[in-house]
C-alpha cells in the first residue's frame, strides 16, 4: 500500500471517530454526521490511487447507481418507516462484505495463494455478511409488514439452527483446508455452500422475533455488518476496513446492549427464545371490570380548567396513526392557555430508541421538551395530568410490582400513576405488545379512558380545549 493512501486512511479513521464523538450531543450531532461522511470521501479518494486505472469506469457506474438509489430512497422514506430503511442499508453493507470475500477467495484459488489469514477470514466474512444481509431483509419485510408477521416458529427451530450452524462451520473449514474434509466438494463449491447456508441461517434467526424487538435485531445486525467489514479488511489487508468495521462492530454491540436493557429483555432471551407476544394470561377475566370511559369534551374541559402542568407520554400508537402533527397542535393550544407541557419519552417508545424524539422534532416540537425516563419521572409528582397516547407497557405500574410476575417485570417504566390524573388515548382496552394488563385502566378515580384512534382523539381533544 502506498504511504499516501495509508496516511489518508488514518485521516479518514480520525474523522470517523471525531464524527461519532460529535454525534453524542444533539447540538453537534449533525456536524458529526457530516464529518464522518467527509471521512468516507477521503477514504474513497485515497482508494482511487491504489486501484487499476482501467476499472475506473465500472467502479464509477456502480458507485453512481448506488448513490442515486441511496439518495432517492433516503430522501423519500417516511420517518415512521425509517427503521426498515436503515435495515436495508445495513443489509446491503453485509451483502457487499460477503460478495467481496467470495470473489477474493476465487482469486486466492487461481493464484494458489495459501495465506493462512485469508483462508480463515474469507469464510468468516462470507458467514457474517450473509447472515447480516438475509437477517436485514427479513427485518425489513417484517417492519414493512410484507411478510413474516409476528413470530414465525416451527418445531425444533433451535435444533435446526444449531445443526445449520455446525454445517456452515464444517463447510467453511472444508473451504479453508482445500477440501481436506469433504474431498468431493471443491473449495469454491464449499464456499458457495457457506454463502447459501448462511443466508438461510440469517432468515431462520430473525423470523421468530416479533416486531417490537426488531430495533434490537437491527442494531445487532448493524454490529454484525461492522464485523463483516472488519473481517474483509483482514482478507484485503486494508486498514480503513479494519478500523471502520471494528469501530462499528464494537459500538453497535454496546448500542444493542443499551437498547435491550432499556426494554428489560436480555439479548439472549430475544435471540434464542422467539418469545414475541407471550400473552401471559390475566387479561381475559379483566374484561368486565369497570373503566372511566370519557368523551373528548370532558377531558378537554378538565385540561382547560384545572390542569396547570401536563406530561404527555407518546407511544408507538402515535406513530402508527401518524398523529404527530395533531399532537403538536394540541401542545400549542395548551401552551397558549398558559399550561406547562412536557414530554416523557420512554427509551423504547417508537420503533427504536430515540425514534419518538425524531418523529416529534420532525413536526417542530423542540427537543428540550422531550425528557428521558430518569428526568421525567420526578416531574409526574406535581403534574396535574399525564396524557398517554398509544402506549401501555411503558407506563404499566405492574412492571415494578414485586407481586406480579410478567414479561415486563423489572422493565423501567414511566411513573404516570404519580400524576393527579391519568388520561389514556387508546383504541381499546387491549394490552400492549407484552400482553400484560394495566391496573391503571381500572382506577376509575384517577384514570380517564378516551377510546379513540390517536390522531382523531388528539384532534377532538384540541377542539375541546379550544372551545372550553
Amino acid at each position, binding site marked *: 500500500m502506498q504511504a499516501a493512501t495509508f496516511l489518508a486512511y488514518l485521516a479518514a479513521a480520525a474523522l*470517523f*471517530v471525531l464524527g*461519532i464523538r460529535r454525534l*453524542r450531543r*444533539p*447540538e453537534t450531532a*449533525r456536524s458529526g*454526521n457530516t464529518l*464522518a*461522511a467527509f471521512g*468516507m470521501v477521503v*477514504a*474513497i479518494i485515497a*482508494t482511487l490511487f491504489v486501484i487499476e486505472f482501467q476499472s475506473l469506469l*465500472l467502479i464509477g457506474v456502480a*458507485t*453512481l447507481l*448506488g448513490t442515486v*438509489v*441511496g439518495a432517492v430512497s*433516503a430522501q423519500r422514506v417516511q*420517518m415512521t418507516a*425509517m427503521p426498515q430503511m*436503515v435495515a436495508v*442499508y445495513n443489509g*446491503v453493507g453485509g*451483502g457487499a462484505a460477503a*460478495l*467481496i470475500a467470495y*470473489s*477474493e477467495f*476465487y482469486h486466492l484459488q*487461481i493464484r494458489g495463494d495459501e495465506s493462512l489469514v485469508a483462508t480463515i477470514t474469507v469464510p468468516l466474512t462470507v458467514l457474517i455478511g450473509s447472515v447480516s444481509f438475509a437477517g436485514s431483509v427479513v427485518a425489513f419485510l417484517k417492519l414493512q409488514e410484507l411478510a413474516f408477521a409476528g413470530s414465525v416458529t416451527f418445531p425444533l427451530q433451535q435444533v435446526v439452527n444449531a445443526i445449520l450452524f455446525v454445517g456452515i462451520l464444517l463447510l467453511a473449514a472444508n473451504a479453508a483446508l482445500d477440501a481436506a474434509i469433504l474431498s468431493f466438494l471443491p473449495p469454491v463449491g464449499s464456499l458457495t455452500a457457506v454463502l447459501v447456508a448462511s443466508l438461510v441461517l440469517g432468515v431462520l434467526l430473525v423470523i421468530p422475533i416479533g416486531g417490537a424487538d426488531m430495533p434490537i435485531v437491527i442494531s445487532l445486525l*448493524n454490529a454484525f*455488518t461492522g464485523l463483516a467489514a472488519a473481517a474483509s*479488511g*483482514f482478507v*484485503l489487508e486494508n*486498514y*480503513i476496513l*479494519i*478500523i471502520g468495521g*471494528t*469501530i*462499528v462492530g*464494537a*459500538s*453497535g*454491540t454496546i*448500542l444493542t446492549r*443499551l437498547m435491550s436493557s432499556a426494554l428489560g429483555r436480555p439479548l439472549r432471551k430475544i435471540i434464542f427464545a422467539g418469545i414475541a407476544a407471550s400473552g401471559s394470561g390475566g387479561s381475559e377475566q379483566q374484561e368486565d371490570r369497570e373503566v372511566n370511559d370519557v368523551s373528548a369534551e370532558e377531558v378537554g374541559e378538565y385540561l382547560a380548567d384545572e390542569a396547570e402542568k401536563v406530561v404527555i407520554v407518546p407511544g408507538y400508537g402515535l406513530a402508527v396513526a401518524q398523529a404527530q402533527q395533531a399532537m403538536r397542535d394540541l401542545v400549542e393550544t395548551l401552551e397558549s392557555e398558559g399550561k406547562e407541557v412536557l414530554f416523557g*419519552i420512554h*427509551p423504547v417508545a417508537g420503533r427504536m*430508541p*430515540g425514534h419518538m424524539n425524531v418523529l416529534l422534532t*420532525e413536526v*417542530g416540537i423542540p427537543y*428540550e421538551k422531550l425528557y*428521558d425516563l430518569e*428526568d421525567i419521572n420526578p416531574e409526574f409528582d406535581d403534574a396535574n395530568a399525564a396524557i398517554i397516547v398509544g402506549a401501555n407497557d411503558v407506563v404499566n405500574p405492574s412492571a415494578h410490582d414485586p407481586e406480579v410476575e410478567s414479561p415486563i417485570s423489572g422493565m423501567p417504566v414511566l411513573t404516570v400513576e404519580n400524576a393527579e390524573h391519568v388520561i389514556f388515548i387508546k383504541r381499546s382496552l387491549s394490552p400492549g405488545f407484552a400482553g400484560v394488563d394495566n391496573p391503571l385502566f381500572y382506577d376509575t378515580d384517577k384514570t380517564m379512558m378516551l377510546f379513540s384512534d390517536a390522531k382523531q382523539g388528539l384532534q377532538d381533544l384540541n377542539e375541546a380545549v379550544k372551545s372550553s
Partner: protein
Amino acid sequence: MQEFLAQLAIFVIAAFLGYELISRVPNLLHTPLMSATNAIHGVILVGGMITLSTGTGVPIKIVGFVAVFFGALNVVGGFWVTNRMLGMFRPPVRRVKRREEG
C-alpha cells in the same frame, strides 16, 4: 505475519475505541447514532472498489460490481437518512439546560 500482527493490534484498539465512544449517550440520539455507524460500515465500498479492480473474468466482475453498488448504497443512503433525521433537531431558540441546573 508481521503485517497480520499489526492488523490484529489495530483491530483490538479499534474495538476498545468503539466501546468507549458509545457509552453514556442520551436515548435521544440512539437512533441517529445507529444510523450513522450504519453508514460508516459502508466503508466496505472501499473493499468493493479494490475487488472489482483486481477481479478477472465476467462472473467475478459482476460480483464486484454488485458489491460496489451495495457499498455505495450503504454509504449514501446511510449518511443521507441520518442527516435528514438530525436536521429535525433544530438548534433551540433559547437553550434550556434543566439537566445541568438540577
